[in-house]
């Protein structure tokens, strides 16, 4: 793109800064090499953590135990409600409790391959190593994972793997893991080491002399804008799937914290890597506010099919077996229904594009008939009861009696702020953990690996690496009365005034819906150059209209949900454009990023390792300037670069 050309003098080669040597020794060696902060000095350091999901809560609890003073912020009324609570299916760990051939190396291999060779090997290996400690920690906290009759932990399978390594608590694994981390956080609050700020939204990052030193927040009840200073800042603010308006994320999930950090100089890596989850309840009507996921775990027992005829309007039960196309089992005999998400989603799109979706529309069947016949209704209910119940509630159809109808929906974002091996962004002092960073999943995340990554980052990586930053960098103590904080606070107040002053005639949600449609059509399951270019223009127009004609009711000095949403949508309107730029520049297909121009004859993603075996990290250059595309080259020493195959 021409933008690269004009900014070419600014392009940086990014380095993860991780250790070298044998991969299985790297993290160990690194822990030894890192500097420590002695216990008496830890209490002199204040750490700001934005986000109380799995990543934020686990990091806060652990760092408080170590002796740091921690402030935690979240937008919900309680840290327990972070979006991690909604994770259903499970969490991976290389325990090999099933004795089915799993190992740390296999989890590492599956994750690198599943991510279509666009993740950093050292990070992924560390993640696989730590995975086993997470399960130990969670069980010790009282997380009630599913157990077998002998009292030992049970496992199930998830996509992209041929072993059973997923630990689960019915369809509520995220809830139980988050409650474990939340309880540890509450204990730390009780001890006085953590101060919790619920219903408080971060609206800016404060950078002093190139180092992240604090944040500016708005109290969502009183509207009060405040600055908080610390010795290090951690963003654990989750993903940005809500740029699509309709997604499986909670209504409040947003990109604001990450986007504000980007505009203060943090690099945004691979924004176009988004995951469209194959099994969600299809859209019903214009009023639809969100989409509901039906966990991937259902693909352990559910079989995916469509009619072999186009526009078949018969009921599922009237379509005889011979006329059903179990297309995943047919095309991918060795992984079958458990292919990775990007492959499953794309194939659902293909059959629906052919006119073979349910009734000729946009849905495919996920059918439990055979599983119920084989195992009985009770066994299926014990595994998936709450999901079946949820499905029944939403659709008024009973999945025990007829197959579920499902369709892909935006679900997870592999892209995020760029971080090094220590989970620190290019801005010293700013650390990013959980879904908010870009690190471990390449261009496609495997199921049950986000919970693993969030908790690995929060319990076991960041508490060490942040110490190294504090010990080597020795940031001076600084008050929130420093001029940089005063100025940042004023900017935020000015921006809020600017938003509240809008009394046009179009609602905030109407803009969000329009943006979502542009993103879904042009930067969704498949993308092409022409569509992406037109999306960039459309988004620019929409953004212009937003600032002219959005209607923001109410005051800034009180609880005002319209104002909250307007601020978030304003940021999505900028992020969406960057996503399209990133997708346009990456002239290859990999994982969830599928460029129609680059595919194999069978319609699989076709990578270009010559030109694109790197992470792209975008740097902000100013309101009207093109961002700069920096690169981090990716080396594959342990997993050979090959065309992914799940056949």
């Amino acid at each position, binding site marked *: 793109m021409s933008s690269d050309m004009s900014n070419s003098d600014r392009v940086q080669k990014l380095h993860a800064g991780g250790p070298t040597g044998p991969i299985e020794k790297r993290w160990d060696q690194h822990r030894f090499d890192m500097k420590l902060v002695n216990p008496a000095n830890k209490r002199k350091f204040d750490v700001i953590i934005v986000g109380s999901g799995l990543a934020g809560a686990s990091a806060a609890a652990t760092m408080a135990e170590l002796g740091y003073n921690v402030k935690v912020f979240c937008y919900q*009324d309680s840290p327990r409600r972070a979006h991690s609570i909604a994770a259903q299916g499970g969490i991976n760990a290389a325990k090999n409790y099933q004795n089915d051939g799993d190992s740390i190396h296999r989890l590492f291999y599956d994750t690198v391959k599943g991510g279509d060779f666009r993740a950093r090997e050292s990070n992924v290996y560390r993640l696989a190593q730590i995975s086993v400690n997470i399960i130990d920690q969670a069980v010790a906290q009282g997380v009630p994972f599913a157990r077998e009759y002998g009292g*030992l932990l049970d496992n199930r399978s998830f996509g992209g793997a041929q072993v059973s390594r997923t630990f689960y608590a019915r369809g509520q694994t995220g809830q139980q893991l988050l409650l474990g981390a939340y309880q540890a956080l509450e204990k730390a609050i009780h001890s006085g080491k953590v101060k919790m700020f619920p219903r408080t939204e971060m609206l800016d990052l404060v950078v002093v002399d190139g180092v992240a030193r604090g944040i500016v927040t708005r109290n969502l*009840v009183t509207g009060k804008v405040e600055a908080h200073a610390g010795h290090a800042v951690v963003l654990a603010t989750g993903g940005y799937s809500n740029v699509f308006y309709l997604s499986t994320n909670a*209504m409040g999930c947003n990109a604001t914290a990450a986007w504000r950090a980007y505009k203060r100089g943090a690099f945004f890596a691979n924004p176009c890597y988004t995951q469209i989850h194959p099994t969600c309840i299809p859209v019903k009507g214009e009023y639809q*506010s969100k989409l509901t996921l039906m966990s991937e775990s259902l693909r352990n027992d559910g079989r995916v099919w469509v009619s072999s005829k186009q526009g078949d309007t018969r009921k599922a039960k009237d379509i005889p077996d011979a006329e059903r196309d179990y297309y995943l089992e047919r095309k991918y005999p060795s992984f079958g229904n458990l292919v990775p998400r990007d492959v499953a989603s794309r194939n659902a799109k293909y059959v629906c594009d052919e006119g073979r979706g349910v009734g000729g529309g946009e849905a495919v069947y996920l059918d439990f008939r055979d599983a119920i016949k084989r195992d009985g209704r009770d066994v299926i209910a014990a595994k998936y009861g709450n999901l079946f119940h949820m499905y029944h509630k939403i659709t008024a159809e009973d999945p025990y009696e007829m197959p579920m109808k499902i369709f892909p929906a935006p679900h997870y974002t592999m892209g995020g702020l760029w971080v090094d091996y220590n989970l620190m962004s290019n801005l010293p002092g700013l650390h990013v953990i959980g879904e908010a960073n870009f690190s471990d999943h390449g261009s496609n995340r495997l199921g049950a690996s986000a919970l693993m990554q969030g908790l690995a980052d929060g319990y076991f990586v960041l508490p060490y690496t942040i110490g190294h930053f504090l010990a080597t960098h020795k940031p001076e103590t600084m008050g929130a009365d420093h001029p940089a904080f005063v100025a940042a606070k004023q900017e935020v107040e000015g921006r809020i005034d600017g938003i509240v002053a809008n009394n046009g005639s179009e609602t905030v*949600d109407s803009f969000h819906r329009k943006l979502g449609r542009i993103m879904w059509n042009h930067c969704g399951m498949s993308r092409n150059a022409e569509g992406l270019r037109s999306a960039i223009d459309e988004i620019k127009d929409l953004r212009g209209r937003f600032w002219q004609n959005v209607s923001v009711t109410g005051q800034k000095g009180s609880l005002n949900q319209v104002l909250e949403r307007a601020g978030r949508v304003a940021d999505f309107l900028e992020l969406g454009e960057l996503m399209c730029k990133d997708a346009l520049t990456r002239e290859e297909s990999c994982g969830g990023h599928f460029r129609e121009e680059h595919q194999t004859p069978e319609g699989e993603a076709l990578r270009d390792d010559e030109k694109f075996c790197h992470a792209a990290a975008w740097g902000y250059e100013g309101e009207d300037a093109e961002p700069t595309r920096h690169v981090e080259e990716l080396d594959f020493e342990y997993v050979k670069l090959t065309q992914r195959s799940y056949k």
Partner: protein
Amino acid sequence: MNLTLHVWRQAGQDDNGGFQTYEAKDVSPDMSFLEMLDVVNEGLEASGQEPIAFDHDCREGICGMCSLQINGVPHGPDRGTTTCQLHMRSFKDGDTVVIEPWRAGPFPVLRDLVVDRTALDRIIESGGYISVRTGAAQDANATPVNKADADEAFEYAACIGCGACVAACKNASASLFTAAKVSHLARLPQGQVERYERVVSMVAQMDQEGFGSCTNQYECEAACPKEISVRAIAQMNRDFLVASLRGR
């Protein structure tokens, strides 16, 4: 279908508040209750009026953020269902629906239908956890747990902390909420060490927050969207008694 809504509006904590009437037109039975409110709100916003504030986030029945007293019942007419999972097919054309915030002293109204439930966090803070330093855990399979116990612990652990139990109780007791956590941890071997200290601290905190006492009416169980059993309360009372006998 068309509905008439009587909605509690209150500008802030110090405002007196009162009911206002709105018409919800062309409501589809497939909408969720909150989507119906979204549509009403968008209409208000488009005409420059302030929309009705209500809490919500996941809209999947798991985060516990949504609330609402619907025709006097927390989370509305469907059993075992949060407001966000309640669908308009549970109503019929011409219905009048009264929508209020949770009504309980320890849950002050912040605005319209939004209340402050941080008292529940403080109950957990007082002892609703197992103390285990990060990294100090033994292998997860070192202590087998009887499946029935693990399953029962899960049933209690499924609490979403929404506060419906408090809103349903005429004494505004938080017994079911507190007991669910006490019973979850009491069922597991890992929870034994702090078992009795835990129940004493949590009950004390519950009282300190101004929640009333349990008089065995079981309204809480009926209102609980996760259908948590009042057996939890019996367990909590037993543990509390044992703790008192042991002089904790």
